[in-house]
C-alpha cells in the first residue's frame, strides 16, 4: 500500500510523558504511525514543525532517551477488518488482549507485537457474487459464519469496482485472496477478506436517513419515556455512583442490535472483566444465543497508557461502521467520553497549546461532534442499497456531576437524547437513576407515532399522562414541604400516590433481577396502563364519594407493584386478572347506592 514512498527515519530529541519529539522527520505525514526506539513502541504523529515531529506514544515511555530511532510506517493509524473480531477484547489500538496475555503474561509489557486478527485461522467462505458480476464498493462478495449469530459479509472495499473474474469458495485465512476483480483500467485486483481502514476517517456510505423507530432496550424509563432512535445518539452524564456503567452494560446486554461494540475508555479494569465473564453466560432474548457472540470489546482501562485512550473511541467506531456497512444494526457504547476528553487535554497540555475552558483544547467540541456524527441510519454503499444502523451512546463523567463541565456541555449540544443521572435517586437506590424531570429525548414524538401504530394506539397518550403526573408530583411536593400532607385534597393525594407508583413500580428497574432486567414493549405498555388505570378509576371513584384511605388500601395495588416480576409469558394473563380485580375492588369501595 505504501509502495515506493520513502519512509522517514528520525531520532528522538525530547521525551515528556507520552509525548516524544523526534528530529529528521521532514518527509513524514500528519497522523502517520511511527515505531519509536528499538523497543518498537507504537506512536502517531500529531504535530509537525519543519524537521520536528511531535508523536503521541501509545505505550509507556519510561526508559526512552534522545538519540533512539523513530521510523515512520507511512500509513495512518488503521484497524484491521475481517472475520475474527466477534467476542474479542482489544486494547485502544486494536491489539488483542487475550493474545497479549498468552504472549507476555498477566501484565501488559511494552512493545508487544501481535497481529490484531488471527492470520492462521481458517474461515469457511461462501461466495454470493458470481464470476462476471459487475461489482462496486460495498457489494457483498460472500459470507462467513463468524459466530452462531453473526454472518460476516465480506464486502468489496470502498473505492474498488470492476468485474468479478474469480471467486474462491472454501476455507481461507483472512489474508488469502478470495476474489479477483478486473478493475475499470483493466488491472487485476486480488481481494483478501482482510481490509484496513484509517480510524480517524469515517467509512463512506450512500447517504443518511432520518431515524423514526426506537432501539428497544428493555429498560422501561428509556423505552417509554426517553427513547433513543435506531441510528440516534444519546448521552448519559452523571456523577460517580449514579449507575452510568450499569446503564451502559444493560444497553450492551439488551439493546435491539445485531452487533454491539463496547468501548471501556479510561475506566475500571474490573468492569471489562465483568463483561468478559458475564456476557458469555447471558442469552440474547432475540436469538437465544450467548451475548458474547455479537459483542466486540475495546478496553483502554484507566491504568493503560493515556494516548491509546484517545484512539480507542475511533478504533471502536470504525469497527462499528464496518458492521453497519454490512447492513446490520450496530450499537456502540463509549464509557466514558470524559476520559477520552481528558486524554485529549493531557496531550494538548504537553503540546503547549493554548487551553480553552478548564484546560481542554479549543477543538474539544468539534472532535466530539465528529465522533457522534459518525452514528446514523444510512444507506450503505453497494448496488443492493442496504440500510445500516449505527446507534451511539456515550457516558459522560462530569466532575462532581456538574453539567456545566465543558465535556458535558459540548456533548449535549450534539446528542438528541439526554439521560440525566441523579445522585439523590441513586442514594435512594432508585435505579436506573435517570431523573425524569431533567432528561429528554428529541426522538420522543416520532417514536411515539411509531409506537401508536405498532404497539398500542394510546401509547403516546399514556406516556403524556404519566409525564404530567410526575411533573405535578414535583410541584405538589413543594406544597407538602410548606404546609404538610394534610392540607392536600383527596384528588391531589391520589395524584401523589399514582406518581409514586409510576416511580417505584414502573421506572424503578432492578437490573440484577432475572425477570426485571428486561421488559418487552407490550409488557411496558401493560404495566403503565395498569398504573394509570388505577389513577383514572380512582379519580372517578373519589368524585363519586369514595374515600382516599380506601383507595390507598386497595389490595390490587400490591399486585400492580409486583407486576414487574411477572415473566413475559404470563404477562397478559396476569394483567387481565389485575385489570378485573382493579375494577371490582374500586366498585366495592364506592358508597352504597352509587353506581
Amino acid at each position, binding site marked *: 500500500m505504501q509502495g515506493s514512498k520513502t519512509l522517514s527515519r528520525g531520532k528522538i*530529541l*525530547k*521525551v*515528556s*510523558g507520552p509525548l516524544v519529539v523526534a528530529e529528521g522527520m521532514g518527509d513524514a505525514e500528519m497522523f502517520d504511525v511511527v515505531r519509536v526506539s528499538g523497543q518498537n513502541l507504537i506512536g502517531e504523529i500529531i504535530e509537525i514543525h519543519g524537521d520536528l515531529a511531535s508523536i503521541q506514544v501509545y505505550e509507556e*515511555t*519510561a*526508559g*526512552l*532517551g*534522545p*538519540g533512539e530511532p523513530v521510523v515512520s510506517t507511512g500509513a495512518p493509524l488503521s484497524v484491521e477488518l475481517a472475520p475474527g473480531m466477534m467476542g474479542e*477484547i482489544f486494547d485502544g489500538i486494536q491489539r488483542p*488482549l487475550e493474545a497479549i*496475555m498468552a504472549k507476555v503474561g*498477566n*501484565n*501488559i509489557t511494552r512493545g508487544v507485537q501481535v497481529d490484531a486478527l488471527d492470520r492462521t485461522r481458517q474461515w469457511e467462505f461462501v461466495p454470493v457474487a458470481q464470476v462476471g458480476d459487475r461489482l462496486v464498493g460495498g457489494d457483498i462478495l460472500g459470507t462467513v459464519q463468524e459466530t452462531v449469530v453473526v454472518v460476516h459479509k465480506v464486502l468489496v472495499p470502498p473505492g474498488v469496482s470492476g468485474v468479478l473474474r474469480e471467486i474462491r469458495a472454501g476455507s481461507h485465512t483472512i489474508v488469502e485472496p478470495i476474489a479477483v476483480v478486473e478493475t475499470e483500467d483493466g488491472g487485476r485486483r486480488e481481494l483478501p477478506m482482510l481490509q484496513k481502514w484509517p480510524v480517524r476517517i469515517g467509512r463512506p456510505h450512500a447517504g443518511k436517513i432520518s431515524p423514526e423507530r426506537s432501539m428497544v432496550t428493555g429498560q422501561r424509563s428509556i423505552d417509554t419515556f426517553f427513547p433513543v432512535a435506531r441510528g440516534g445518539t444519546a448521552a448519559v452524564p452523571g*456523577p*460517580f*455512583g449514579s449507575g452510568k456503567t450499569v446503564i451502559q452494560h444493560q444497553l450492551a446486554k439488551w439493546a435491539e442490535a445485531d452487533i454491539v461494540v463496547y468501548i*471501556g475508555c*479510561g475506566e*475500571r*479494569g*474490573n468492569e*471489562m*472483566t*465483568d463483561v468478559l465473564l458475564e456476557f458469555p453466560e447471558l442469552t440474547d432474548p432475540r436469538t437465544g444465543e450467548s451475548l458474547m457472540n455479537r459483542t466486540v470489546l475495546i*478496553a483502554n*482501562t*484507566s*491504568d493503560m497508557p*493515556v494516548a491509546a485512550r484517545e484512539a480507542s473511541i475511533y478504533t471502536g467506531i470504525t469497527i462499528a461502521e464496518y458492521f453497519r456497512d454490512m447492513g446490520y444494526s450496530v450499537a456502540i457504547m463509549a464509557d466514558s467520553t470524559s476520559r477520552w476528553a*481528558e486524554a485529549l*487535554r*493531557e496531550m494538548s*497540555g504537553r503540546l503547549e497549546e493554548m*487551553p480553552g475552558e*478548564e*484546560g481542554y483544547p479549543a477543538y474539544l467540541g468539534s472532535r466530539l461532534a465528529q465522533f457522534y456524527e459518525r452514528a446514523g441510519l444510512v444507506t450503505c454503499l453497494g448496488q443492493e442499497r442496504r440500510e445500516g444502523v449505527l446507534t451511539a451512546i456515550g457516558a459522560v*463523567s462530569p*466532575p*462532581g456531576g456538574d453539567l456545566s463541565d465543558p465535556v458535558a456541555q459540548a456533548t449535549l449540544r450534539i446528542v438528541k437524547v439526554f439521560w440525566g443521572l441523579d*445522585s439523590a435517586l*441513586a*442514594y*435512594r*437506590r432508585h435505579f436506573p437513576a435517570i431523573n425524569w424531570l431533567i432528561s429528554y429525548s428529541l426522538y420522543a414524538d416520532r417514536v411515539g407515532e411509531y409506537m401508536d401504530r405498532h404497539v398500542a394506539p394510546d401509547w403516546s397518550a399514556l406516556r403524556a399522562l404519566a409525564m404530567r403526573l410526575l411533573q405535578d408530583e414535583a410541584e405538589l411536593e413543594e406544597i*407538602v*414541604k410548606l*404546609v*404538610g*400532607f*394534610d392540607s392536600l385534597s383527596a384528588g391531589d393525594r391520589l395524584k401523589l400516590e399514582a406518581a409514586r407508583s409510576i416511580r417505584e413500580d414502573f421506572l424503578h428497574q*432492578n437490573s*440484577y433481577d432475572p425477570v426485571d432486567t428486561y421488559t418487552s414493549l407490550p409488557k411496558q405498555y401493560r404495566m403503565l396502563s395498569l398504573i394509570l388505570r388505577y389513577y383514572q378509576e380512582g379519580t372517578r371513584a373519589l368524585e363519586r364519594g369514595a374515600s382516599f384511605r380506601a383507595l390507598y388500601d386497595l389490595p390490587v395495588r*400490591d399486585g400492580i407493584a*409486583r407486576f414487574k*416480576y411477572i415473566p413475559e409469558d404470563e404477562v397478559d394473563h396476569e394483567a387481565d386478572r389485575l385489570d378485573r380485580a382493579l375494577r371490582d375492588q374500586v366498585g366495592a369501595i364506592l358508597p352504597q347506592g352509587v353506581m
Partner: protein
Amino acid sequence: MPREYRTIAEVAGPLMLVRKVEGVTFGELGEILLPSGEVRRCRVLEINGDNALVQLFESTVGINIAETRVRFLGRGLELPVSPDILGRVFDGMGHPADGGPDIIPERRLDVNGTPMNPAARNYPSEFIQTGVSAIDGLNTLVRGQKLPIFTGSGLPHAQLAAQIARQAKVRSADSKFAVVFAAMGITFEEADYFIRDFRRTGAIDRAVLFMNLANHPAIERISTPRMALTAAEYLAFTRGMHVLVIMTDITYYAEALREVSAARKEVPGRRGYPGYLYTDLATLYERAGRQKGKDGSITLIPILTMPEDDKTHPIPDLTGYITEGQIILSRDLHRRGIRPPIDVLPSLSRLKDKGIGKGKTREDHAQTMNQLFAAYARGKEAKELSVILGEAALSDVDRLYAKFAEAFEAEYVSQGYETERSIEETLDLGWKLLSLLPRTELKRIREEFLDRYYKERTS
C-alpha cells in the same frame, strides 16, 4: 561506574535542571551527591536534547550548583523485596526505618508496575466479612476490591480502618493474609495509632509498613504508595497472599503531585491539580485486584480527607470515578454519637452484587439490602419533613418510616469500634428493623423471603 555530572543549571521547588547529559532516559532514577556527602534521589521528568529535568524525592536544602553532583542509574525507582519484608517498617522511599537490617532482595521490582491486562483479571466475588454491619450488610467488600473511605478532618476514619484491618476475614477459607500500610503525610500520632493497633492484635507480624509522616519531605509521598503497592503485588501475586492495603491519606499525595505540577508550570486542571490527576490516581488504584491463575489478591482501602467535607472536590471526585465504590463518613452522624458514622446512603460498593447471596452470604441479602436502603431514605425524608412541620404533618406510614430511620442509625450503624458482627447477625438485625414496617411496604423483597424471615411486630 555511571558518569557524574556537575552541570546543574537550575534548582526551583522540587525540580532541578541538569545540562549536557548523555544517554539519560525518561523516568530514570538519579542520585544527587551533596557536598556534605549526603545522597538524595531524583527522577527524570523530561528529557530534551541534552537537558534533563529532574524531580527530587527529598528536600532541596543544601544543594548548590557549584559542587553538587548528579549521576543517573540507568533504571527506574525499585523496591527490593523478599518474604522478610513482613513485619518491617520502611520509610516512604523503601529504606528500613525500624533500625533493622537492609532487606536481602529476592528480586528488585520497578515501583511503577505495569498495567494489568483486563483479560487477565479475575472478577472479585469473595465476600470479606469486616464485622461492620454498615459495610457487610449494605456496602459489602469483596476480595480484590478498591473501596476508599471518604472522610473529613476530625472524623474517626482511623478507628474504622483499624477495625476493618483487625476483623476482616474470608469465611470458609483459611489462607495467608497480610496487611500493607502506607502512611502519606499523616501525623506521628495517627500513624502510631495504627501501629499500636497492629501490635495489640498481633497483626504487625503480617504487616509491611511504609511511613511518610507529616514532617517528612512532601515529594517523597509521590513514591510512597507505589512502594506499598509494589510490596503488595509481590506478596499477592508472587507469594500467593491475600493482601489488604490501607493507604492514608490520598489528599496529601495529590497535593504533592500538584506541587510538582505547579513547579513545572503545567496548565492546571480543576483547583490547580494537574490534568493527569485521574490517570495518575488510576495507576495506583487499578493495581488492586485478582488475577487469573494466581492465588493471592490485593484489596485496597485508601483513606482520603475531603477538603471541607466536599465530595465534589477533585480528589474524592476523581477517586470515586476509579474506585469500586466508597464508604462515606458523615460529620452529622459523628456529632450525634453514631459510631462508626458511616453515611450509608451515599456510600456504595459496586462489587457487592457478585459477592452476596446464596452460598456467599445468605439468599435474602440482596433484597433486604435494597429494602433497607429505600426505607432508610424514606425515613430520613420523613424526619426532615417532621422537623419543619411537626410530626403531626406526617402520614401514618411516614411516621413509621421516621421511627425506622432512628432505630436503623442507633442499632444497625452504631455498633462501636470493638463490636464484631457475623453476617448472619447483621442480616437478622436488618429483618428485626424491617419488621417495624408493615409487610405491604416491603415491596422490594420477594414473598418467599418475607414468609421465611418477616415477623411483624405487634405493637
